[in-house]
C-alpha cells in the first residue's frame, strides 16, 4: 500500500487545466521534490491534496483511504499539512499562540498540553525567544520558520512545503536548510516545492517535474537535471 497516491488527478479552472491526469505514488519516509516552471501546477497539486480544491477527476488516497472529498481540517486530522510561500500565520496573535491553535485542533490536545507542545516546537524551530511577540512584528524569514512550525504543530506526518525558502537572505536560507535537515531526521515524509535548487538536490530522493499541469519527468535528482525535456521546459527548445 502506498503512503500517498494520486490517481489520474485533473483540476480545471474554467478552460485552464491546471493539473492533467496527474498520478503520483509515495512511500512513507520518502522526500520528494516537485519542480516546474511558474504556473506548471505545483501549488495547485498541493491545494488539491490538502483539500482547498477538490479535483474534477481522479482520486487521492492517503494511507489507503480516499481523501478527495474531505474538507481541509479533516485532511489535517488525517496527518497531512501544508506550509506555503504566502505564510498562513495569524498576524494579530503571538508567535506561541500561532502554534497553540494547530496543536489544539490538529492533534486534539487539551489547552495545557497544546501549550507545552507549542513551546517544544518553538524550541525546535529556534523561535522560543520570540514566543510573546505578535507575528505582525517578526521578519519574513521568521514567519516562514513559524509556518513550518505551524505544520509541525498539527502533528502531520506528511508535510507539503511550498517554497518556504523563497525570498530569504543567505543567513535565513542557511537556518531554513538546517531546520529542514532536523525535520528529515525526525523521519517525516515530505514533498518539497522549491526554486532553491541547492535544497532540492540536497534533500530530494526523487524529483518529479511538472509542466502545464502534466508530469514530464521523474527520477533521481541528477537524472532529472540532465533530462532534455526538463531543460526545454525551463529554458526553451534551443537549449535542450
Amino acid at each position, binding site marked *: 500500500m502506498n503512503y500517498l497516491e494520486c490517481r489520474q488527478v485533473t483540476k480545471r479552472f474554467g478552460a485552464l487545466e491546471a493539473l492533467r491526469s496527474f498520478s503520483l505514488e509515495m512511500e512513507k519516509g520518502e522526500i520528494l521534490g516537485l519542480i516546474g516552471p511558474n504556473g506548471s501546477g505545483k501549488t495547485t497539486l498541493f491545494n488539491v491534496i*490538502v483539500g*482547498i480544491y477538490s479535483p474534477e477527476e481522479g482520486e487521492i488516497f492517503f494511507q489507503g483511504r480516499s481523501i478527495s472529498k474531505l*474538507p*481541509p*481540517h*479533516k485532511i*489535517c*486530522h488525517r496527518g497531512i*499539512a*501544508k506550509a506555503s510561500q504566502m505564510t*498562513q*500565520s*495569524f*498576524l*494579530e*496573535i*503571538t508567535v506561541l*499562540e500561532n502554534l*497553540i*491553535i*494547530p496543536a*489544539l*485542533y*490538529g*492533534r486534539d490536545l*487539551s*489547552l495545557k498540553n*497544546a501549550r507545552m507542545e507549542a513551546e517544544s516546537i518553538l524550541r525546535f524551530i529556534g523561535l522560543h525567544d520570540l514566543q*510573546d*511577540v*505578535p507575528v505582525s512584528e517578526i521578519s519574513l524569514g521568521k514567519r516562514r520558520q513559524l509556518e513550518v512550525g*505551524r505544520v509541525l*504543530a*498539527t502533528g502531520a506526518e506528511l508535510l507539503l512545503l511550498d517554497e518556504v525558502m523563497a525570498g530569504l537572505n543567505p543567513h535565513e536560507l542557511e537556518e531554513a536548510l538546517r531546520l529542514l535537515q532536523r525535520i528529515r531526521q525526525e523521519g517525516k515524509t515530505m514533498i518539497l516545492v522549491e526554486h532553491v535548487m541547492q535544497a532540492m538536490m540536497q534533500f530530494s530522493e526523487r524529483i518529479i517535474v511538472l509542466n502545464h499541469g502534466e508530469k514530464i519527468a521523474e527520477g533521481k535528482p541528477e537524472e532529472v537535471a540532465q533530462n532534455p525535456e526538463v531543460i526545454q521546459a525551463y529554458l526553451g527548445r534551443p537549449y535542450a
Partner: protein
Amino acid sequence: MKEPGKKTVFILSILAVLLAVLPAFGLEGYRLRLLALVFMGIALAGCWNLMSGYTGYIDFGPVTYFGAGAYTTALFMIRLDLPFVLSLIFSGIICAFLALWIGLAALRIRGAYFAIATFAAAEALKQIVLEGDRVAGIEFFGGSHGLTLPVPPPSEFFYYFLLGFMVLVTGTSLYLERSKFGYGLRAIRGSEQAAELSGVPTLSLKIKAYILSSSLIGCIGGLEAYWLTYIIPDDVFNVMRTIQMVIMTLLGGMGTVWGPLIGASFLTLVAEFLGTKFVYDYLTLLGIVIIIVILLLPRGIMSLVKFKRGGAR
C-alpha cells in the same frame, strides 16, 4: 489575545455582587430601570461580540433573534398560557434552530455578503410577522397591531433577570478567552484558510458561536417583550437595535471581554444624559460623541488600557 487573569474574574464577580445587592440599599424607580437598561445593552452587545467580535464575521442581523425571541415569548404566553420562564426557554430553543437554519446558509459567505445576508434575514422575518396574518387569513402574529402580553411584575424582576443575562454573557466571553473553542474562533478571525489548514473545523465552530449568540439574544428579546407588555414588528425587528449592538461593541472594543461592558455602559448613560439635558438635539449630539470616540480610539475605549504584548487588541 490575552487570557483573563484571576484578577479580571475577581473584579467582575465583585461588581456583579454589588449590583445584585443595590436594590436592597434603596435603588429603585428611574435609576433602577436605567441600570437594567445598561445591563440589557451589555448583554446584547456581549452576545453580538461572542459571534462577530471573536470570529470577525460582522453579523448585521442579530435583531432577527431579538424579534423572534420577543414574538415567541409573547405567543407562548398569550396563545398557550405558558408561564414566562418556560416561554423564555422556548424562545431560546426556537432561536437556536432558526440560527442553525440561517447560519448554515449565511456562514458559507464572508465579509459584506455575510452582513447583507443576515440583514436580509432580519428584514424578511419582520415582513413575515407583519404580513403573515393577512396573507394566510389568520389571527396569529397580530400584524402591524402587534401583541399585548400579560401584566408584568415590578421592574426589580427585570433588573435581576437582566443582571443574570449580563453575567451569563460576560462569563461566556471570559470562557472564550481561555478555552479551545475561543482559540478556534480567533483563528477564524485571523485567517479562515489558515485555521482550516491547522485543523480547525471552521464551519462547525462558526455555527456553534452563531447559535450561542442568537439564542441568548432571543431570550433577551423575550424579556424585553414581557417588560414592555406590548410589541410590534417595527419595534422589535428595528434595524436600529442591530446598529446599537454593533456601535456599543465597537465603542468598547471588539473581541474583548470588557469591550461590550464599557461600550454599552458608555452609550446608554451618555444617551440618557444627553436625552434629559438636550431634549431636541440629543441624537445629533450623540452622533458627534460616537464619531469623536471612533476617530480618536478606532480600536475602542478598551485600547486606552495598556495591555502586555499580544494583549486584547
